[in-house]
């Protein structure tokens, strides 16, 4: 059983939803990332999504764009990010880590070299936002051979026919993009979400994560009532900007937000909690 499967199985048993914070690797500086990952886990994160900085983050809003720029000032490369994963694994062998980014750095490194290095580092999944299943065959085969789950997105605009296609290629969990827009948008419609996820469950047995537009504990709690995982990105990365280069301050603030979300999500899932979605 992969680390991702294992984690979702445990959570299902406890009737809890996974909390998945996203941080951009190398933001605000490369040395900050591994301690930050541990701090997020200590605060209640179940899985970590680690952003690979890219020069042209087309699917990201201003908050994560700036995080990429900060990380790239230090030249944080995909190899550096994999080294961070390896470092994290030295003391945490159970929390799954998924890389999220764009295809070109992976292409440049080479699919085979990536899969081999990622396996050694203890990476669990890869989500490349600009790689739809149609173009992914080669990389998916290599990832699977290395025990790394290819994670795919489903969007509000994805047709039923495409959902089947995505579901066939996906492993680990399916990431539902909760809105039309870039990361950090502010208009998550929780009422439509329940219905949409129910529809998705007819196409896949994989856990369903929801991301984009989850900005506070209240939204996280609402989403946790209907989804298997809640992904929070800009709401955390924003804190790096606010703490302007102060890595410890950022880590403390991020941990506080994660803990608030964790608590609110667990309360929302507890027996007797009123449905708010």
């Amino acid at each position, binding site marked *: 059983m992969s680390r991702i499967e294992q984690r979702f199985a445990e959570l299902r048993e406890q009737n809890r939803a996974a909390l998945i914070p996203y941080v951009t690797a190398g933001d605000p500086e490369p040395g900050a990332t591994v301690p930050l990952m541990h701090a997020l886990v200590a605060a209640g994160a179940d899985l970590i999504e680690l952003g690979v900085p890219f*020069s*042209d983050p*087309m699917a990201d809003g201003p908050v994560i764009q700036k995080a990429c720029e900060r990380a790239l000032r230090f030249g944080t490369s995909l190899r550096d990010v994999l080294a961070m994963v390896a470092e994290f694994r030295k003391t945490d062998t159970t929390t799954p880590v998924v890389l999220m980014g*764009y295809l070109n750095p992976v*292409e*440049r490194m080479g699919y085979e070299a990536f899969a081999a290095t990622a396996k050694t580092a203890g990476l669990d999944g890869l989500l490349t936002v600009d790689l739809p299943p149609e173009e992914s065959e080669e990389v998916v085969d290599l990832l699977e051979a290395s025990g790394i789950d290819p994670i795919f997105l489903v*969007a509000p605009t994805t047709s039923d026919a495409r959902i089947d296609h995505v579901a066939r290629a996906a492993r680990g969990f399916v990431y539902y993009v909760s809105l*039309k827009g*870039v990361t950090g948008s502010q208009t998550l419609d929780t009422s439509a979400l329940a219905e949409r996820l129910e529809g998705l469950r007819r196409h896949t047995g994989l856990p369903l994560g929801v991301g984009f537009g989850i900005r506070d504990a209240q939204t996280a709690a609402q989403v946790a009532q209907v989804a298997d995982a809640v992904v929070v990105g800009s709401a955390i990365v924003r804190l790096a900007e606010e703490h302007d280069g102060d890595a410890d301050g950022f880590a403390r603030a991020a941990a506080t937000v994660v803990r608030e979300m964790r608590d609110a999500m667990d309360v929302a899932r507890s027996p007797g909690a009123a449905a708010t979605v």
Partner: protein
Amino acid sequence: MSKIDWAAFPDARGHFGPYGGRFVSETLMGALDELQQVYEQYINDPDFMAELDHDLKQFVGRPNPLYHAERLSRELGGAQIYLKREDLNHTGAHKVNNTIGQALLAKKLGKTRIIAETGAGQHGVATATVAARLGLECVVYMGEEDTRRQSQNVYRMRLLGAEVVVVKSGTRTLKDALNEAMRDWVTNVDDTFYIIGTVAGPHPYPAMVRDFQAVIGREAREQHLEMTGKLPDALVACVGGGSNAIGLFHPFLGDESVEMIGVEAGGDGVETGRHSAPLCAGQPGVLHGNRTYLMEDENGQIIGTHSVSAGLDYPGVGPEHAWLKDIGRVNYVSVTDDQALAGFHRMTRTEGIIPALETSHAIAHVLDLAPQMRPDQSIIINLSGRGDKDLNTVAEREGITL
């Protein structure tokens, strides 16, 4: 190579050999499927094509001439030089051939809002123009650096009723404008049509833009045959994203005797690293929805480009060019900023035609090429645009304040 069925490319999923394809976030996949469907339907629909031809004739002013540049030919003492006068189109460049076509598709799809990216501003102006004509809302994304060097075009777009959004992220040039347009599209995909200005982006854009621009080559081929009784020996065009080049080249691909040369922006010189010549000095990667040659560092980060011409200042290139390079059907070269400036002046003073700085790259190459050929041979240059927009840039480089 004679066995290649050129019409069979791209394949159903937009691949030109290993290049092209559709590398976008999931949210856009449905919109691209829909676009491909209407595009394939209408490009084979006689009524639609008649409407397009009518607009190209009555609004754009096609067919434009194939002009024999006799004086320049004589001075260079080699091949006869012919200019395909895209600069005479309404709005002053080839870009409008494509925006007319895509705007008609936008109308068929019932979209009420149009977005575009622009570098030199020519595509932005051509988009704002068709949007004004059809009464569609129009937003154009343009890098801050480009709004400065092409300020007249910014004003033209605003006069035409478009909102020009100044993009301040990344390198503040064309690639960043494209990123921003993609972000807009993913947010407003229900009512918005994205008119991409070159033969790049996810499938079906490279094929669709090529097909709309191929009118250049179809006309030029017919005109050259009529004027000289034979095919030209060489075709030369500048390559930014590659739309004017593919527009000229494509109808000639099956004519084996016709040599084709795409001219990239060499900036300060390809050896300096400060250039925009991915085909000459880049390697394959994935950006902006397709796999193609890119300028990137060893970690796969896209690197800043440089060219005196905003319209060539782009780190990628259309995927069909990447493939044509690999199979050897088209030869890609580069010329420097200084050479392009020399081409600009030479054309202006010798033929009374002020070319765009983008176009001047193609001219500069022909200044070297023509003397190596015989007077009974001929070259067609795609005179892709007029240079009015570049007067400030040229003056500035020469220390003149207008």
